[in-house]
């Protein structure tokens, strides 16, 4: 059976170059990267090389990169690290956090938690197109705002947020701007300078690197209170013995992602995504695209197949060798409808009828052929089984 991995937004496969860089480090070098031993020197070199590649991918300086274990940790560090720094000052009037309603839970839950600790929160709505409305941003930006956090590319529907404009508005209002670029890094060219981000998160396992290594860009001279403290690693911004192999993998994957962006690999994958979208919309009656048709990365295609249970469709496709996810893939633990689709105004039934296809390196035309063949048939089977006239009439 053909195996088609169309769940790259959940995690990408580790690219062979990254794997090759990691394997010798899994066993050989066991010195502590902070010790003065010779092995420690070699270890430091590995870490600094990875830092340089990640910095290059973002157009940042190496010393502006703080390595973390996960993208979620980077997001937690960005929000808590900035607000804790303000708290320290006390006298400061700026304490408000502004985030969008479609942020990843690692931003949204952290923001809600901070709200419970006395940092007021504004949650920006999105339109039915899954894009943050700039006018709402403008209205939210009073002089009490400390930090605005809006993601670049949404992980569920792939919509691209107007982050550059939001960054400019935030700065004009005297606030800092954090961008969760976990789904953007490697998919769209990023320059932190052009964007105007003060902080920006990415995760290795979404761009061809391994899990266990992620990064937060922290603009030079920005004051950030560490969440994990007590060692001088990462210039005292994140303590803990470094996972050398994972960092090396992240570095190689970042370098490779940058080269592929330059070589317009994104265009090839984007064309596949467009074919997938158009093909499925044409072949599946009553299917519709979730999220704006234009302002999105074409490799993430989230479709609502009315009258079909998304999870049932996922398993049906899985039997055909096709790996996809439901809208709420990242939170298998929370069975409610996706907060992203809900924020876009989808009724729960439609949210539960939605499935995300996400393409990446390794996908080719034949994969799309197979998805276009298997999916409409699976949708029809499920609709027939469901007898919508009886079960979904409400």
């Amino acid at each position, binding site marked *: 059976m053909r195996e088609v*991995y169309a*769940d790259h937004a*959940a*995690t990408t*496969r*580790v690219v062979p170059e990254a*794997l090759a860089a*990691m*394997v010798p480090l*899994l*066993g050989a070098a*066991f*010195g*502590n990267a902070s*010790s003065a*031993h010779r*092995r420690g020197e070699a270890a430091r070199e590995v870490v600094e090389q990875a830092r340089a590649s990640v910095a290059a991918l973002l157009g940042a300086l190496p010393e502006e990169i703080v390595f973390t*274990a996960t*993208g*979620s*940790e980077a*997001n*937690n560090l960005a929000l808590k690290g900035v607000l*804790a720094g303000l*708290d320290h000052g006390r006298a400061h009037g700026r304490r408000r956090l502004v985030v969008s309603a479609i942020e*990843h*839970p*690692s931003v949204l*839950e*952290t923001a809600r938690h901070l709200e419970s600790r006395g940092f007021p929160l504004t949650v920006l709505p999105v339109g039915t197109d899954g894009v943050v409305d700039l006018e709402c941003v403008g209205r939210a930006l009073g002089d009490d705002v400390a930090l605005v956090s809006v993601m670049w590319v949404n992980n569920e529907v792939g919509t691209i947020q107007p982050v550059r404009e939001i960054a400019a508005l935030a700065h004009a209002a005297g606030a800092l701007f954090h961008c969760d670029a976990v789904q953007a890094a490697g998919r769209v060219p990023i320059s932190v300078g052009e964007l105007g981000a003060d902080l920006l998160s990415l*995760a290795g*396992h979404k761009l061809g690197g391994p*899990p*266990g290594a992620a990064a937060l860009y922290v603009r030079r001279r920005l004051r950030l*209170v560490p*969440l*994990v*403290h*007590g*060692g*001088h690693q990462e210039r005292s911004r994140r*303590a*803990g*013995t470094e*996972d050398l*192999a*994972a960092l090396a993998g992240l570095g190689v994957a970042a370098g490779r992602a940058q080269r592929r962006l330059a070589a317009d690999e994104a265009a090839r994958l984007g064309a596949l995504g467009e074919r997938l979208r158009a093909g499925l919309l044409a072949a599946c009656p009553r299917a519709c695209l979730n999220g704006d048709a234009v302002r999105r990365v074409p490799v993430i295609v989230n479709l609502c197949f009315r009258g079909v249970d998304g999870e049932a469709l*996922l*398993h049906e496709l*899985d039997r055909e060798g096709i*790996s*996809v*996810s*439901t809208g709420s*893939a*990242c*939170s*298998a*633990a*929370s069975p409610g409808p996706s907060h992203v689709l809900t924020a876009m105004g989808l009724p729960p039934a439609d949210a539960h009828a939605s499935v995300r296809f996400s393409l990446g390196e390794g996908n080719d035309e034949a994969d799309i052929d197979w998805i276009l063949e298997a999916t409409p048939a699976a949708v029809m089977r499920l609709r027939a089984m469901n007898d919508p006239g009886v079960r979904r009439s409400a």
Partner: protein
Amino acid sequence: MIYFDHNASTPVRPEVVEAMRECLADVSANPSSLHRGGQRARAVVERAREQVAALLQARPDDVVFTSGGTEGDHAGLIGAAWALESQGRRIAFAALEHHAVHGAAEVLARSGFEVGHLPVLADGWVPPAALDALPADTTVVAVMLANNETGVLQPVAEIARRAHGRGLRLLCDAVQAAGKIPVDFEVLGADYLVVSGHKFGGPKGAGALIVRPGAPFEPLFRGSGHERGRRGGTENVPGIVGLGLAAELAAREQRAEAVRLLALRERFERGLREAVPDLVVHGARAPRLPNTVNASFPGARSDHLLMALDARGIEVSAGAACASGAVEPSPVLAAMRVPRELAVCALRFSMGRTTTEAEAEQVVAAVGEAVRAVRAASAGGGA
């Protein structure tokens, strides 16, 4: 090179390397994904959870995977302190705790928590009775199982009894003990237990925090429900696989290995005493890890000794690895009231699974030479 610095980090076991390599190549889905690939990744993670639980006599459900000991100490201490905030804003621990605990306390102090101190006896351990003197608004205490510099074992079970008698929660940093000596979460009675893979043949970047059911806890990293809502972030699947296998191997071998290392260490220590009769072994009268010797060589400064040993192909550490390079006496030895001039002459020797008898003999000989050489140079005004 003879590696006598296993407390800093251990060589990753070849079986572990192989398992991780295979995992990286074969298991590429996200364990949260519902398709078969995701389920396979989930199964691999859950098997590792069982392996780690078995090493520590804990329940798999109570295991929270982390990126290592530093994160574990933070997640445990900060997570407990905030969850108990309504009862008080004070935590306590002794100066001999690892930097990671001191760091977590600094994070809490920034948010207005008070940090109290537990005393340390000259033998290197915390007297359990000291808990009775803590102020009433104390909510969490941290006591490590084995000290990273001296190897001295703390009376954790007794401390846990006293802590619970007073309604306090106990965090136990078992990073140096796990995989070296049997660690039983039930017997210890701690509410939170921290371990790290790279200290017992596993990879760096993977560790675990064990949270007793019912123990108050707030996650350090929030996110989408990973680790039963206790640690947000996509799991480091290959790291977790390596950690799990290292735990299984350690569970199988640790008793025999501890016996072997203890005999080796006794011989090693005797050898050192013969080579340098005026050496002082720190924590010598306390129960210690079977692999660790921390000794001062009067008149020979640690940084000079380190270099002299390095030149002889031997890796040891002056105090904690994290503190090497600094000539300040270690806070652990200071807490044990080791005089400063003695503390700056201390070396930590830590052996491990790969250490042989022949290596121990070579180290003894090299230390003798190095101490003589350093002392001669210092006497000649070289220092």
